[in-house]
């Protein structure tokens, strides 16, 4: 058993991360999960959230939107729809997205299709803002 994990985060646009790491915490659809070396084979869909990986004592964060994660043989492969580092996030844009989503959510029935869409948009915006704040 290797004493380290290999983390690969790929999006349709690029390979965002490919590095040896010590620990990964990722947003699964059914909640956050942590991976340490020696983890059992695991396959999950990802929700909207923050991916954290630790190299030594250093923690790194990524804003993650949807996708999958596979853990096998100490290799963590994350296929996300989007993955952004804190410094890459456009905070003004995320802020605008949050306001827009909040406006749409107020005064709508909860069974509306657009409601779900606005809710997802709001979650993305909040998560981006949260991760962007990490840079400070």
């Amino acid at each position, binding site marked *: 058993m290797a004493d380290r994990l290999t983390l*690969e985060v*790929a*999006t*349709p*646009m*690029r*390979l965002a991360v490919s590095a040896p790491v010590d620990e990964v915490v990722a947003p*699964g*659809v*059914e909640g956050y*999960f942590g991976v340490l070396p020696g983890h*059992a*084979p*695991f*396959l*999950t*869909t990802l929700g909207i959230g923050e991916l954290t990986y630790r190299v030594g004592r250093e923690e790194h964060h990524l804003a993650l939107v949807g*996708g*999958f994660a*596979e853990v*096998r043989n100490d290799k963590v*492969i994350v*296929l996300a*729809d989007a993955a952004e580092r804190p410094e890459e996030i456009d905070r003004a844009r995320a802020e605008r997205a949050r306001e827009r989503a909040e406006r749409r959510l107020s005064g709508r029935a909860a069974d509306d299709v657009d409601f779900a869409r606005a809710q997802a948009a709001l979650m993305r915006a909040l998560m981006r803002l949260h991760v962007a704040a990490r840079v400070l």
Partner: protein
Amino acid sequence: MATLRDIRRRIRSVESTQKITRAMKLVAAAKLRRAQERIVAARPYAGKMAELLGNLVAGTETGDGAAHPLLERREGPRRQIVVVTADRGLAGAFNSNVIRRAVELIRRSSAPDVTLIVVGRKGRDFLRRRGHTIAHEMIGFWDRLAYGHASELADRFMQHYVAGEVDEVHLLYNEFRSVAVQRPVCEQLLPIPRSEAGGEGTAAPADYLYEPGPAAILGDLLPRHLRTQVFRALMESLAGEYGARMTAMEAATKNAKEMIGVLSIQYNKARQEKITKELLDIVGGAEALKQGAEA
């Protein structure tokens, strides 16, 4: 005979055309490089996706019947073809190659069975003029091609397929072989070919813990797999378009150069002739004067 002025005017006109073709070539070359980089950047994602899908389908297909509506196989004649062309021409045979293949494919099946999803203005204009059924069209996005466009396209045909409106979906686009070579290829998207969905060559499926269940993950993975495939095809087509335009404009620039050469020779000849004629006139005139003086 063309006068000197006419020839000069033509030379100038060819020169300005050459300037345009050379500029277009340079622009295409720059864009091509970017497009190629994007293809390379997208490869890891697509590769992992295919690998995951293989493992997963192998793991879930043990039961009877299809594990997911998108894996369902129907023996039916209704085909949907996604035709990918460029918005603009001046790219050699880039668009016409794909369109010709599309027309061939359509002719081979009976008309009401084929529906089209057309990408790119060139293909849209042509196929609409011919009166084909166009279920959906996407135009004018090439300059800002993003994954979202692929999603929109893929979601369309998946919807048609799941609703049982079509039995097969094919993707027809220009494959980017090299800068100089693009080849129209037709790939079956749905039902997902056996070779992609598991089949041999797949390692024994690892005993995964699934969260949520395998079927739910598959339901998430399949649409993404299709979107990724469409995205890759769109990017290849875009790179191919630039490659084709670069090659075409290079040839055009060369032709213009040749033409300028020929015209320059013509111009010089005409100028020489004119000078010779003038000289003869002068000499003739002088001769006549001399003879007049002697007489």
